[in-house]
């Protein structure tokens, strides 16, 4: 019975010009956004490759150079672009994914304005994720709002019920038909990706990415059909569904982001910088020999080398001081980054709770997590660059201290081979399990909503065949 209803609904929908038009427009949106996403991706990837090559070449061609000057010269860490970024750029356009690596200063992208916001600014961009997350459910609403209500209005519902179809079967068959239509759009996305990047694709991640959307569409189809069955009129069903869509896609996410920011505010860029600088000042100043803590360190090193003065040291004491200062700076960074990370997590928890009311948020977060473009991914990248930076600065400071120069020889130069031997930064994207680990609440929310929707369809009572009384 469900299969019969499914077949009829699918046939009817595919033959319906309005549906053809709607599905056509949605496909067009998807193709346009994919084309735009692919263009942006290619452009970024090319620019990134050129810039990375240039930075590497510049570093390798430093020649003989003072290590501390090299630390100020710096280099760049590039985060490779994941292929799924084409479909869901997430927060990446706002957080950036290139960080400068240099001495004294932790990576600068930490100060990027957008990186301290988990709001939905990304709606300004026309990207496939917008179509997949907001437009396809809208298509499902337009397909399904009249599915039962219109049958009731025209009287065919009476005939269907009299022929033996139950509401449960009708709702299931119709919802499955609309779901299959939405899956067609997902299939189009899979085909585009397979044609363009089949060989490079991480198919397990991509399959999960698509599965998340498939479940989301099933939920949207079931709820839309259920609302249509409950509504007396199709116009009423459409009003309720559009209201729900607005609430899910725009209002609740904005409210959740604002609530998160109100409950767990992140400091402004200026305040954050000031706090960091204030704490940093309490550390050792590598360029100020009158600092008391520098004197304590000096005494310790002199004792270690059993000499009376810095001039007698066989090493360059300035390198040791600078490394000690870096280590203090690292502690400051760890504290502030830790606070920042914790606040972001608290904000994110608010959004995760809000996703219980708006599964759109759940699928959005899940999508970003699987595309590797979530705020967590950005923070992971930052941490990874910071880890690299610390090793990189330490190597330079050690070369300054132990490479053959003496204290005060700021003009001393390390050999070119030393700089060339330093490893370039490579980012290891965390695995699928890491991406999912942060997103269990969203997965549970999506599954619970789906169960509720199935329950509503399976156990609905008091649905009327008549359009009055």
């Amino acid at each position, binding site marked *: 019975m469900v299969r019969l209803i499914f077949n009829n609904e699918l046939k009817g929908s595919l033959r319906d010009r309005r549906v053809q038009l709607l599905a056509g427009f949605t496909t067009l949106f998807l193709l346009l956004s994919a084309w735009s996403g692919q263009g942006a991706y290619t452009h970024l990837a090319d620019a990134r490759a050129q810039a990375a090559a240039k930075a590497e070449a510049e570093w390798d061609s430093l020649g003989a150079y003072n290590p501390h000057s090299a630390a100020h010269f710096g280099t760049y860490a590039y985060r490779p672009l994941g292929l799924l970024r084409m479909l869901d750029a997430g927060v990446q356009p706002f957080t950036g994914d290139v960080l400068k690596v240099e001495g004294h200063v932790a990576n600068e992208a930490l100060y990027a304005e957008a990186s301290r916001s988990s709001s939905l600014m990304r709606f300004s961009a026309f990207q496939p994720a917008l179509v997949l997350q907001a437009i396809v459910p809208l298509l499902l609403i337009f397909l399904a709002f009249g599915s039962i209500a219109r049958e009731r209005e025209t009287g065919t519902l*009476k005939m269907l*019920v009299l*022929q*033996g179809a139950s509401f449960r079967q009708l709702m299931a068959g119709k919802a499955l038909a609309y779901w299959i239509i939405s899956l067609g759009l997902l299939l189009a996305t899979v085909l585009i990706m397979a044609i363009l990047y089949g060989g490079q694709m991480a198919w397990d991640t991509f399959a999960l990415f698509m599965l998340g959307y498939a479940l989301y569409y099933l939920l949207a189809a079931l709820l839309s059909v259920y609302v249509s069955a409950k509504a007396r009129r199709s116009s009423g069903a459409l009003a309720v569904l559009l209201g729900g869509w607005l609430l899910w896609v725009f209002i609740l996410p904005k409210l959740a982001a604002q609530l998160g920011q109100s409950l767990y505010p992140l400091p402004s860029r200026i305040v954050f910088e000031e706090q960091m600088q204030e704490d940093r000042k309490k550390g050792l100043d590598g360029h100020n020999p009158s600092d008391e803590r520098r004197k304590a360190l000096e005494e310790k090193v002199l004792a270690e080398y059993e000499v009376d003065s810095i001039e007698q040291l066989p090493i360059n004491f300035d390198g040791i001081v600078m490394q000690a200062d870096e280590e203090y700076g690292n502690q400051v960074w760890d504290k502030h980054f830790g606070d920042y990370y914790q606040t972001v997590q608290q904000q994110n928890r608010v959004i995760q709770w809000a996703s219980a009311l708006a599964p759109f948020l759940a699928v959005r977060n899940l999508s970003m997590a699987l595309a590797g473009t979530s705020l967590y991914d950005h923070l992971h990248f930052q941490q990874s660059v910071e880890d690299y930076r610390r090793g990189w600065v330490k190597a330079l400071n050690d070369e300054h201290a132990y490479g053959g120069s003496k204290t005060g020889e700021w003009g001393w130069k390390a050999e070119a081979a030393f700089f060339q031997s330093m490893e370039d930064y490579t980012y290891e994207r965390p695995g699928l399990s890491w991406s999912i680990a942060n997103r269990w609440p969203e997965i549970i929310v999506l599954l619970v909503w789906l169960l509720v929707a199935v329950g509503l369809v399976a156990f609905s009572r008091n649905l009327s065949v*008549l359009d009055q009384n």
Partner: protein
Amino acid sequence: MIQAFNLSKSFNGQPALQQLNLSVAPGEIYALLGANGAGKTTTINLFLHFLEPDKGEARINGKPVAEDQQAARAGIAYIPENIQLYPHLSGIENLAYFSALSGQKYTTAALEQFLAQAGLEPEAFRKHAHHYSKGMRQKTGIAIALAKEAKAMLLDEPTSGLDPKASNEFARLLTQLSEQGMAVLMATHDLFRAKETATRIGIMRSGQLLQELQPSEIGHTDLESLYLQQMS
């Protein structure tokens, strides 16, 4: 067999049907006459169990409708005032779909035979239903009812909007079906058609069955006079 025992229904405290007792035996065509709001459609909806009765019981082929809706509905064919078909399907596809829903699997030839029996022209069989006139839709609806092979048929203003020829063909078909042993209950305003087709006529007003008549025992003019008298 179509039976009602003290069947009553009210909406918001207003009685729509009061203590209806009715029995339509196999081979009978019972016409329920009455003005709008007399309770005819409510009666039909109670037999179809689209409405829950406040009191009393409706039975189809001896089965209480409220106790086993599926079994009762399986024995009913129903033709509403305005048959609506799926516009994207042809007449024969509509028939195949509705028949399949009721568990009937027919060959194309058998489906064509039902449509022909209902009076639909063969060239219309494969046209999409959005091209159909009301008469063509009614005929397809009749074919759906025929294909169900039910023993009871409920009709709600079935000839409303049909031209005289189509209405006449429809009446002949109903007579044929009743002769084959079907029990038919028809709600209608059409006094002439009721007199010509029905084996019994019931006149309703304000939810009450006021009078039952044998059409053979009354002329057209007398029926009209009686009807108007009851309505006044």
